């Protein structure tokens, strides 16, 4: 008697669950990093630079290359703004 096809259905379900997990994780990470890959092996220097990037662009992964900062940069540091707007979540 050949192998019944019904016995492969659970394997298909298991594979589908793996694919769903992978898709969900990839979607969440891409959304959170604006389409770029996740940054790994971050040390304190990188975390503090990302907080500075958020001061300059509004998001942790945004990048701009102006030599001179806009005047808001002098006042929008989280140390000058009150607690609820602290932007050091790196």
């Amino acid at each position: 008697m050949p192998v019944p096809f019904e016995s492969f259905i659970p394997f298909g379900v298991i594979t589908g669950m793996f694919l769903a997990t992978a898709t969900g994780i990839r979607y969440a990470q891409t959304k959170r990093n604006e389409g770029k890959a996740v940054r790994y092996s971050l040390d304190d220097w990188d975390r503090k630079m990302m907080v500075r990037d958020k001061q300059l662009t509004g998001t942790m992964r945004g990048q701009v290359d102006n030599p001179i900062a806009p005047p808001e940069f002098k006042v929008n540091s989280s140390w000058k703004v009150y607690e609820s707007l602290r932007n050091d979540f790196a």
Partner: protein
Amino acid sequence: MVNPGYRNFKGEDWVDPTPPPSNLPHVDEIGSTSAPLKSASFFIGSLCQEYNEDFMLCKNENRDPQHCLLEGRKVTRCAIDVLQKIESKCLDEFRNHWRCLDEKNQEFGRCRVPERAYNECLFRAFGWKKVVPDSPANKPQIHERTPLTK
């Protein structure tokens, strides 16, 4: 204006609660984020070496912020000057390189191809060469080595 990320808090209403004293000379801050700074880092380091070393030695004497304001202003102005020069002549190669760095976890070793074009452009425009400080003199620089595999 509305600062990005602070939609409900207008920038005009923000006031610095502890402004610096008014007798200090004005200095612009560097407005570039981490990836462009990392891309320009070796050139800033080699061109601004005297100012950076002055600042570090000054901080070594005394960690009080007021002690090293003059040296700090010089460091900032030198870095701004280097960035302005790079952007005046080699803007496209610079942008390619830091965009590549931004996608590859800001690791130099994964972005050698754009880096080669960027270094060549800077050498043609200003004669600057990227040199890793304290590297052994008898071996080629790591960014100029031909890769063993494709």
